[in-house]
């Protein structure tokens, strides 16, 4: 990994009225790095990406992207980056080729270079045979692939992807992953990805940040993060009449590191899960609980995620609906 920084963010903050969507976030991304931003819905991922890509002005703080300050030189930043926004933005009324061609002209790329680049990229994303079909006839996965190819037309230094596989079927998701991995191998492209799919971050990213309620909770390689949580394995138990007593008793077992409980479910962070499972079940039984089901699984980034962000669904701030125009217009809060 090179020392040169592709992205330097210091104390960036975005407020929408009283809501703080991104709260004093600082981090650095090295050139050529695949950097992931993980977080639940409403954590501030999209707001952050929009600030880094000049679409939103930060309330406070500073961000340098592709060697330029996002607030002072937005045009220069835009020339150096390629962004795949969360929503599908390829033009339905145009063919795949036309989408890419017009986009390339937005960057002032000459005709011959454009042609070569587009056919190379279409080949790469496997859309050559459909290049002259209207995008309206594409599936979600095809549109996403086209959009990834489209933002590469001008050879950006940094690629931003905002939840690129959201709403895609597992096959398409894997195709997109394969594409991104290929991109990483190809050149010194820096990739910044936000996602709430753990396996996505685990499969792709060199380093991962977990963000929740606008704040960075933890940053490191997937391995570092997994090593940070106690216990190697997790036993999930479903217990009828789960009580405080059962949880306290379980915590006293020597191989148990941590217990999370919610309703009738327990997540127990343990060493050697498979071997210690019977002992844990015995302990629960003797404390008056009835084990309905039990599973043992190895730590994944998902567990890291749950470990740091908790299991409850976020109470998201209600989106604003204008009284005057009604809900007909979605008020963009940038998240």
């Amino acid at each position: 990994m090179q020392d040169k920084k592709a992205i330097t963010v210091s104390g960036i903050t975005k407020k929408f009225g009283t809501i703080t969507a991104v709260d004093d976030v600082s981090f650095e991304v090295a050139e050529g790095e695949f950097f992931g931003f993980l977080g639940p819905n409403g954590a501030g991922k999209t707001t952050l990406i929009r600030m880094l890509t000049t679409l939103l002005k930060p309330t406070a703080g500073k961000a340098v992207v592709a060697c330029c300050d996002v607030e002072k030189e937005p045009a220069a930043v835009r020339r150096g980056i390629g962004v795949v926004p969360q929503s599908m933005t390829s033009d339905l009324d145009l063919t795949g080729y036309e989408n890419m061609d017009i986009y390339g002209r937005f960057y002032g790329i000459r005709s011959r270079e454009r042609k070569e680049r587009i056919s190379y990229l279409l080949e790469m994303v496997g859309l050559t045979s459909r290049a002259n079909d209207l995008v309206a006839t594409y599936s979600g996965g095809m549109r996403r692939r086209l959009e990834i190819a489209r933002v590469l037309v001008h050879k950006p230094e940094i690629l931003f992807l905002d939840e690129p596989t959201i709403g895609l079927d597992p096959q398409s998701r894997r195709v997109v992953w394969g594409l991104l991995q290929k991109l990483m191998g190809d050149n010194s492209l820096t990739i910044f990805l936000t996602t709430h799919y753990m396996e996505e971050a685990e499969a792709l990213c060199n380093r991962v940040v977990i963000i929740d309620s606008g704040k960075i909770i933890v940053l490191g390689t997937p391995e570092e993060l997994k090593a940070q949580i106690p216990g190697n394995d997790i036993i999930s138990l479903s217990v009828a009449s789960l009580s405080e007593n059962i949880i306290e008793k379980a915590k006293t077992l020597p191989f148990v590191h941590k217990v999370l409980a919610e309703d009738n479910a327990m997540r127990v962070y343990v060493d050697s899960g498979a071997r210690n499972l019977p002992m844990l079940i015995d302990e629960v039984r003797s404390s008056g609980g009835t084990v309905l089901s039990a599973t043992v699984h190895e730590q994944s980034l998902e567990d890291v995620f749950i470990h740091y962000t908790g299991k409850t669904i976020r109470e998201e701030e209600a989106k604003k609906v204008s009284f005057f125009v009604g809900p007909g217009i979605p008020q963009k809060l940038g998240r």
Partner: protein
Amino acid sequence: MIRLFAVIERDLKKFRRNPVVLAMSILMPIIYLVILGNSFQGKLQALPVVIVNQDAGPSARQLIDNLRAIEAGPKTFKLLSRKDQDEAVGGVKDGVYKAALIIPSDFSRRVFTKARPEVGLFLDNVDAISSENIRNIVKSAVRSLDSDYVAIRENTGEVLLRDIDLFGKVDYYQSLVPGVVIMAIFLGTLTTGAFNLVMDRFLGMDESYLLTPLSKSHIVGGLIISGLTITTLIAVFIFIVSMLITGIPFSRALHQWASIFIVIILTTLCLLSLMFVILGRVGHPRIVGILSGFLNVILFFPSGAVYPIASFPGWLKTFAKVNPEAYAVDALKSILFKNATIPVISGDIIFLLCFTGLMMTLAILSFKRTL
């Protein structure tokens, strides 16, 4: 039954939660009533009529007094007087006056001697409704002057009103052509330009080009030029078809075709940039739908395309003074039916240019380059 009610309830709820639609569906008929009512049945008022009186005699004075009474009473005219006959007739040709009444120097003498007195009335017959009104009122004013003498000897003493239509005959359908073209331009500008921006925003596609190095003026300018191309083609097509249908002659000088084209382009630019100012930040096509009806009513009907502006009440006349469609209609009518040259319609063109410039500046200023 439960299913039917569910469909009904869903629809009613949607309606209630969109106050703009609700308010507009109540306001629109009222706006229609106020604007349409006032721009159609209104009495013609303050039509500028110029009198060139070359006669110092009593009959001329009496005729003018008769007309003054109408000016003071029903206020149909605004009378002005000029010395120079050519200047007065020229003024009618250029659209400054609606009519010029020429009282020759021997008028009173001829009335007195009953030697077939005559007055000349030069009419701007392109505005058929106004000119017909003026013709009738002047005719009756002349008759009432005459009545003292009719009893004595028939005919020879009767004042002859020579009314001269300054322009070739324009029938009602032909007079609607400029309005039809302006309507085509309006609809064209509504469905191109800023509307595409609204649709992109609605579908979330604006994000993709806001992320590129395109500047504000690239985006606004590009959309305006593409809208201009489409709308101009539509307008020219509609123009030619309606000329064919109504039988307006095609044989005209090249400079006239050029001025027609200039007026169409300018009007399109004007309305496109106006739409950008109005729709620049709108994010839902529903709002465009509501505004289109509203804008059409307030721009088209008070433009003089169907009924002369002179018949409007004061407030609507004032509005017509800042309504770009009124200037466009006037320019097209002048070229089509009065064979006007560029200098004659320069006022209209200057207004359209200034309006476009102002709106274009506002459009670029108000357009947000960020989300």
